[in-house]
């Protein structure tokens, strides 16, 4: 469907241009640089470094912006497409595949609208053939549509409601500490998951409707028994990118235990920096827990899962409060301020009504059930008669419209992970 691909390509550029022409200019320049340097790499191998250095420099400058105060072009999704461009140039340099000669095909890889703003971070050797063989089918259309709506449900019914509570708690760290901080951390785990994986479901669902399967980014991460496992199941495409282009080039686990630990910590520091300079400490802690987390494992799976979830939740505190010091104070307050009674009497003042709490509870149960049985549910859905599938999609649409938190006075448009 070449015409449809042209339309998708133009749509990507048009939407991107909507966020500002300087940003579009950067996207085009970065794409051209990566394309040209890759073409030259087989004959002039150091050319790879030109594109890698330029993309990495832009990313680092962007992430250090809060410290340097430097004015930079605001380019949406730069964190995602820069990593794609780096992976492409390195792969060509490693002769994993030849450089793409067709500029349009390469540009489509970068500007493909569904994954342009929040990933997943695709590799060119996976994307290009899939795009070439893209085929829209009724089954894929239904499956993708249902998935996209389920993602929207996660975003608008769960994440938006949780955002209200967490916003209320994080706005007053002096008074909302102890039990409030703990609740914020636990609920933020669900908010971030619903928001990011909901966004991914929308991206993957829409792409599937277009007949283009993208890489999965989540695999029920909160059922992990260790940090190592968690990072294999959370933001999978970033994790695999970091493993392949940071951890392994550093030596991976091939140079002894001490070096393996060091490489792991460095990789997670890079991950922290990718999220933003204020998340370096978060990256450091994650690196340490990945190195030593397995030693905390017991023979009880459920206990391991709960323990891992609690530790992960504590570390999300760096994302909840505006600076690392406040986040650490809040984590400390969980163990020093015992205001649990006060929390239960004031829970109603955290921005949600009783009805909202009930809707939230029901939706979280639904999320848990879906995550537990998602493979079976998807198979069940795919085997149903087209009328039943239509009914499921209609029910999901109605569910979002009725129980979503959106609209006037409530901005649920921005996905948390689009800011990184």
């Amino acid at each position, binding site marked *: 469907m070449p015409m449809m691909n042209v339309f998708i390509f133009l749509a990507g550029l048009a939407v991107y241009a909507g966020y500002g022409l300087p940003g579009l200019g950067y996207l085009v320049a970065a794409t051209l640089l990566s394309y040209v340097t890759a073409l030259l790499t087989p004959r002039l191998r150091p050319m790879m470094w030109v594109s890698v250095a330029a993309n990495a420099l832009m990313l680092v400058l962007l992430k250090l912006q809060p410290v340097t105060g430097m004015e930079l072009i605001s380019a949406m999704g730069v964190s995602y497409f820069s990593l794609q461009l780096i992976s492409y140039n390195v792969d060509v340099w490693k002769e994993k595949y030849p450089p793409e000669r067709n500029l349009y095909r390469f540009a489509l890889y970068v500007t493909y609208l569904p994954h342009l703003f929040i990933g997943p971070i695709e590799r060119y050797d996976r994307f290009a053939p899939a795009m070439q063989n893209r085929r829209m089918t009724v089954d894929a259309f239904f499956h993708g549509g249902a998935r996209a709506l389920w993602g929207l449900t996660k975003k608008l019914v769960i994440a938006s409601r949780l955002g209200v509570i967490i916003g209320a708690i994080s706005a007053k760290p002096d008074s909302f500490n102890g039990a409030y901080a703990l609740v914020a951390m636990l609920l933020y785990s669900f908010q971030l998951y619903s928001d990011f994986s909901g966004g991914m479901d929308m991206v993957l669902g829409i792409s599937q409707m277009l007949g283009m399967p993208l890489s999965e980014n989540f695999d029920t991460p909160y059922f992990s028994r260790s940090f190592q496992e968690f990072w294999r199941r959370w933001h999978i495409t970033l994790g695999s990118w970091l493993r392949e282009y940071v951890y392994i080039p550093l030596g991976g686990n091939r140079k002894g235990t001490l070096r393996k630990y060091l490489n792991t910590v460095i990789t997670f520091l890079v991950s922290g920096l990718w999220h933003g300079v204020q998340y370096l400490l978060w990256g450091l802690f994650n690196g340490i827990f990945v190195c030593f987390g397995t030693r905390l494992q017991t023979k009880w799976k459920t206990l391991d899962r709960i323990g891992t979830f609690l530790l992960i939740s504590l570390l999300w505190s760096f994302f909840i409060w505006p600076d690392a010091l406040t986040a650490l104070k809040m984590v400390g307050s969980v163990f020093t301020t015992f205001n649990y009674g006060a929390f239960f009497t004031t829970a109603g003042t955290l921005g949600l009504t009783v009805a909202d709490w009930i809707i939230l509870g029901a939706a979280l149960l639904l999320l848990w059930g879906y995550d537990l049985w998602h493979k079976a549910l998807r198979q069940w859905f795919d085997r149903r008669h*087209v*009328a039943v599938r*239509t009914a499921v999609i*209609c029910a999901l649409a*109605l569910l979002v*419209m009725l129980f*979503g938190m959106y*609209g*006037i006075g409530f901005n649920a448009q921005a996905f948390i992970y689009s800011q990184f």
Partner: protein
Amino acid sequence: MKKIKTFLSVLAVLLVFVLLLSFFNRLLTPKYATELVEGSMIAQYYGEAGNHDVIFIGDCEVYSNFSPMEMYRQQGITAYVRGTSQQLIWQSYYVLKETLKYETPKVVVFNVNSMRYDEPVKEEFHRLTIDKMKWSAEKVGIINASMTEEETFLSYVLPILRYHSRLTELTSEDWEYLFKDKYSTYNGYLMKKEVLPVGKLPVKRPLADYQFSDICYDYLEKMAQLCAENGVELVLVKAPSLYPYWYDEYSAQIEDFAQAHQLRYYDLTQQIDTIGLDFSQDTYDAGLHLNLSGATKLSGYFAELLAENHDIPDRRQDAAIAAEYEEKLRLYDEAANGGT
């Protein structure tokens, strides 16, 4: 055969979905029956459209201050008020345009108070004017002209997108008036009998700029043109009120516009004593709007002006109209003489 069966079953599912969607759209949209009744004024007109000699267009100053029942009683004038809360001038234009599709009055009276507002005040006010409006090119126009940045056109097509949060706040009114409407005005006049005498008014401070915006002039021009095209006389009026202040500089600009377009302009803020208004008795909100007592005085005075200066006929001799208004006046008087 199998394909037809599949097609029909999908169609049936979609039909159920559309029905459910319509049901929730209806259920969740405010009914404006017993609370915020201003939201039902636009719809009330559809059942009473046609055969009015005078149509009033404008904001709360028209539906609070001009009583068509009194105008009929005193001068035999048939009038209807198409006013809504905080009706902005671009909304007035589309309301007028829609009205002229239903009838061709002799005179359209436009209250110029909205000339001082060149941007939306609150999205909720748009809804009071637009929610119950019938779908037409005018409704599309009024939505596009009124939407704030945070609004979407789709939320007017599917009110569920705007009012979904009401699901947990539904009252008995929402169920009672799910499939029927309740109207509260008398030919568009919203009767208020309470008295809240005027107290100390804020100091009348000079403004840095009195100039009306271009956008307001554009729509006033459009209204004048629309009336001219339809052979309707446009009359400009500023209803009497003590506050917010209607500055002489405002009046001068309207006067200039009226002269340039050969229109009549009545600044009734200058006629308070002539009308006989007493703001210790004739207002329900300390000088902003008139109560029943004040509206009765003003309507009588203005009906006389219309009859004398604009040749509006006395319809009391028309048997059909007389019979219709006799019943309307009975209900009006019942309400006027009933409890507060």
